[in-house]
């Protein structure tokens, strides 16, 4: 299986210091937040790669770096063999970029309320100076809306319909990769089912590859071929979806699976996980999960576990074994 996307040592640091003057007066040091740290994985062509993890784990930051909305501090994103940061041939970079689109969580915020749906949907093509005649109408029908909707404004649509409009817009430039950042998190389950089905159908029909970002494990289990689990900006486990659900090897993955509420677990008394995600500006030493890890040993406080092959998975834990 060829990789459409190769991500190598991807890192992003944000400067979250107070303004310079405050720092001088209050004698504060510079504050750096490492949102994504040394993340390496491949997204195979025509597959769904899911990134999961709790709030602040770096999912969206990775997504934005993949589509080029945010420059990496370090590391590389290579798409169709083109390194977007270092490739000298600008035409090739532009060509590759046009093969990547992004869908966001909030279908309300990501649609310009003053534009007609026709112009919103055709925008990615119009921006490239391409032919847009009848394009929006065709795409709207492809996502289950009607051609007549092209003349309407976003406020005339429900949440699920607006997400369809976002998908239609993402399809306009005939992308090969779509980064979907929590595409159904704002939607009800019944609407979510409609949107996820649409995404699966389109993937099959158009041969799309998805980088699917979500914290909903039930959705991940349904959609993903491969899964990467993030904790505080690092990949802590990666495996094929079936493998991961059958045998989560990292204590954090196990904790996530245990804590997720289950529709078939009536009155289940969970022993809830300890603690919360630590402050990313001052992450714990060694393994960042150690303050919450039920099996931590002394070594975990000092030495950070590298992501290494464990059976068919990759796991960053000193104690993981196949």
């Amino acid at each position: 299986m060829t990789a459409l996307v190769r991500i190598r040592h991807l890192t992003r640091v944000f400067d979250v210091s107070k303004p310079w003057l405050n720092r001088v007066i209050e004698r504060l040091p510079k504050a750096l937040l490492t949102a994504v740290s040394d993340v390496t994985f491949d997204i195979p062509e025509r597959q769904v790669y899911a990134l999961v993890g709790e709030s602040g784990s770096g999912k969206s930051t990775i997504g934005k770096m993949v589509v080029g909305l945010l420059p990496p501090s370090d590391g590389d994103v290579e798409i169709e063999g083109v390194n977007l940061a270092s490739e000298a041939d600008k035409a090739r970079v532009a060509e590759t970029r046009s093969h990547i689109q992004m869908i966001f969580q909030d279908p309300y915020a990501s649609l310009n309320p003053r534009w007609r749906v026709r112009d919103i949907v055709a925008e990615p093509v119009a921006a490239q100076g391409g032919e847009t005649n009848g394009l929006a109408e065709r795409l709207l029908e492809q996502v289950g809306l009607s051609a007549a909707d092209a003349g309407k404004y976003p406020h005339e649509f429900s949440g699920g319909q607006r997400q369809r409009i976002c998908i239609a817009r993402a399809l306009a430039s005939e992308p090969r990769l779509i980064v979907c950042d929590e595409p159904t998190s704002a939607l009800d389950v019944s609407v979510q089912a409609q949107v996820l089905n649409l995404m699966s159908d389109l993937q099959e029909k158009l041969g799309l590859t998805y980088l699917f970002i979500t914290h909903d494990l039930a959705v991940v289990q349904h959609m993903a071929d491969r899964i990467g689990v993030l904790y505080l900006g690092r990949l802590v486990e990666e495996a094929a979806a079936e493998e991961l659900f059958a045998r989560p090897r990292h204590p954090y993955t196990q904790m996530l699976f245990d804590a997720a509420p289950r529709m078939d677990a009536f009155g289940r008394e969970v022993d809830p996980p300890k603690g919360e995600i630590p402050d990313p500006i001052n992450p714990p030493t060694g393994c960042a999960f150690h303050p919450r890890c039920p099996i931590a040993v002394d070594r975990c406080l000092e030495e950070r576990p590298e992501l290494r092959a464990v059976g068919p998975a990759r796991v960053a834990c000193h104690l993981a074994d196949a």
Partner: protein
Amino acid sequence: MADRVQGISSRLREGTAHKPAAPDGGTDKPVLSLRDLVVEIPTRYGVLRPVDGVSYDISAGEILGVVGESGAGKSMAGNAVIGLLDPPARIASGQVRLNGESIESLPRSEMRRLRGKQIGMVFQDPLTSLNPLLPIGEQLAETIQEHLPVTRREARARALAGLEEVGIPGAADRLDSYPHEFSGGMRQRVVIALALCAEPCMLIADEPTTALDVSVQAQIIALLKRLCRERGMAVMLVTHDMGVIAEAADRVAVMYAGRLAEIGPVADVLTAPRHPYTYGLMGSTPLAARGQRRLNQIPGAMPRLGHMPEGCAFHPRCPKAAPACSQSVPQPVVMGDGHLAACHFPMTVEPQEAAQ
């Protein structure tokens, strides 16, 4: 067809005959009891009814989960109970009884006293319930003194006990901290402490964990379950997360377009739903489609307020719809022990089939 119609009318009779008593199988002396609650919003285009004839009971020590699509009227019903409807929305008819006493038409000042003292509230965004300018110890002590005849010192002591009860680590040192100094999960714990500090008999929690991570959500849900049990509180838990409902609720009420579609013991409703909407809702979850490439979906969308179809509001989307469905509004009919569904042609699924 003829015998089907016969079937409807006999069920309808059964439904109406059953109604005045405890319509949802709650105990004789519920803490909260809604009867035919109607909330209306007068607008230029006519009167909207976000809540349209809802009846249910919640008993002491019981968690009633309230689910339904966005806009189904879940929050409106909860806000009506605590007298927090934003004008021009108002209770147009029906009753809200707290420990047997009608509270739906209490004057504002009385209602304010009742809130906090007898009914605690927790919302999705903890910051809406907290004053950003006051240390949390102050806020708790103030609320306690407002509702209970205690001294300042005792109020402080109770505030501390409250924070300890909801699991704030190092509570004694955190009394003087401000809301922004806490994480989202800890803030929600503070709000729960605040909601419970005057020892109310009823708690309304509207999407209390929707903004939280799964690990913190699990902590908060475990906390709510424990407090409900230990204090014998009646809890209304509004959420759209079926997993949370399954794990936390004793009974569940499913709302659709302002009306109660189905209510009953949580395992019965989730595994053997009788209302086609509940059936479709359960079926559209990823769990129900395990091993299938596509999820099952309900066609269409919930009608907008002001565009409600005649008869059963679900009929344009319902696979079982028949002419009778667009003619009359189905009334709740007993399906089993404490299990009611408002449908002319309820599902006859075998138990288990739906959720597998």
